[in-house]
């Protein structure tokens, strides 16, 4: 643990790695030291490698635009090694960043022709990413600071007067119904296999009326289904309806002996 920064200090004593208020800074601030048992908590506090790098930079009051790559890389690697030693699960992103830092560092060491326009500062991409991440880290903090529901913003709860709550009933017009019927029939026509029998509405209706009169386990006299006032047509329709119901096994006719009253009973 102690040799962690010793090496740094030897190297750093030869050159300032940062300017703080114009003064060269050659000693790493002691508050960078973190006891090992606190390390896990410490690392969990980071939202990834960019966050860790930002921390390293900020702790030393370094300008993000002028990252001393060698130093930062060294410190970063130390943390990674520590995490490794402590067998902490290391997110892959941390290793990707380690290799990116190593690459930048090696490119910085290469001599570059003077006078020619540099293609790129090897650090440019890293700086861009650090800045962009920092920008949204700040935005998240700002967002968190906004007054918000459940914390600062509460709703008023005024006692309501007694109001008659009416449950609205769905309105249907006869047109809606007829159009629906026409559509379904039109659609059914396309299914040739569906055969709808030829039947009259009035008989169908009478079938419903007959069934409606029947209660299960109850016998109703046959003649009760005929109303003379309806005339011949009405009697015929009723008769057809009963025949149809028998055919469809919906009702039974019962007669105990010849000329005895005929009873109608619903099946089931």
């Amino acid at each position, binding site marked *: 643990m102690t040799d962690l920064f010793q090496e740094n200090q030897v190297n750093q004593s030869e050159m300032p790695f940062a300017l703080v208020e114009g003064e060269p800074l050659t000693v790493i601030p002691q508050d960078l030291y973190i006891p090992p048992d606190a390390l896990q908590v410490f690392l969990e506090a980071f939202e990834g490698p960019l966050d860790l790098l930002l921390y390293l930079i900020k702790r030393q009051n370094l300008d993000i635009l002028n990252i001393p790559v060698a130093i930062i890389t060294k410190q970063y690697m130390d943390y990674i090694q520590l995490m490794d030693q402590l067998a902490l699960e290391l997110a892959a992103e941390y290793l990707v960043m380690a290799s990116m830092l190593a690459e930048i560092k090696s490119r910085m060491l290469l001599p570059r022709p003077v006078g020619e326009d540099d293609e790129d500062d090897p650090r440019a991409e890293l700086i861009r990413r650090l800045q962009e991440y920092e920008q949204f880290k700040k935005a998240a903090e700002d967002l968190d600071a906004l007054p918000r529901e459940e914390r600062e913003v509460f709703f008023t*709860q005024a006692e*309501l007067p*007694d109001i008659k709550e009416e449950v609205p009933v769905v309105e249907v017009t*006869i*047109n809606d119904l007829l159009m*629906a019927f026409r559509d379904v029939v039109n659609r*059914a026509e396309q299914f040739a296999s569906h055969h709808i029998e030829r039947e009259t*509405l*009035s008989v169908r*209706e009478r079938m419903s009326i007959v069934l409606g009169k029947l209660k299960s386990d109850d016998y109703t006299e046959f003649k009760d289904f005929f109303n003379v006032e309806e005339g011949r047509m009405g009697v015929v329709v009723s008769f057809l309806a009963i025949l149809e119901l028998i055919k469809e096994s919906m009702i039974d006719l019962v007669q105990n002996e010849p000329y005895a009253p005929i009873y109608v009973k619903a099946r089931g």
Partner: protein
Amino acid sequence: MELQTLKPIIEALLSSADGPLTVNHLYDLFTGDLDQPGKDDIRKVLHELVDEYQGKGMQIKQVASGFRLQVNPEYSTWITRLFQQKPPRYSRALLETLALIAYRQPVTRGEIEAIRGVSVSSNIIKTLQEREWVKTLGHKDVPGRPSLYGTTNEFLDYFNLKSLNELPTLSELKDLDQFHPELALNDDDIAVTADEPAADKEGDTETAQQQPDGIDQAAS
């Protein structure tokens, strides 16, 4: 605490509480504050607030269990409207099911499904029964003993029909559509078509003769 500082805090507390607050409860909420107000101050502010809210949309009112913010009952007309739900619309599936029950009764769910080509959800049947437009007439004596559905008098009443005969035949429906596409079936058309005295024997016969065509067409 100054009364003028105290007032909006009490106002805020009354407006967010979900029930009346007593002077004692309010007093307790200031525990720990450097200049905790006295109960007399709280009482005084409450009565000032009661007066201040006269004639507003809300009022602060003392009830048996304390002080509360309530909506001024004078405006309940509009509050009622606020909570009035828009009547929902019935689905196409429901209307088609209803129409098939009306025209094809007594009919089983399976038969409706066969014509519609899709299954009929139990919810639809339930809704129609709750609305008392459709009832179970009995059970068909086939395996599974499915319910036979038919329409009710409530159904006829709702659609202002004396009997099912007043429903137009399918051919009439189609003709209307064909000859007056711009009319697209308004109630007047139906009334004319359906204007058939039920008691009239000849009318009955005619209707009876018309129906098969209409229904048959649906099948062919």
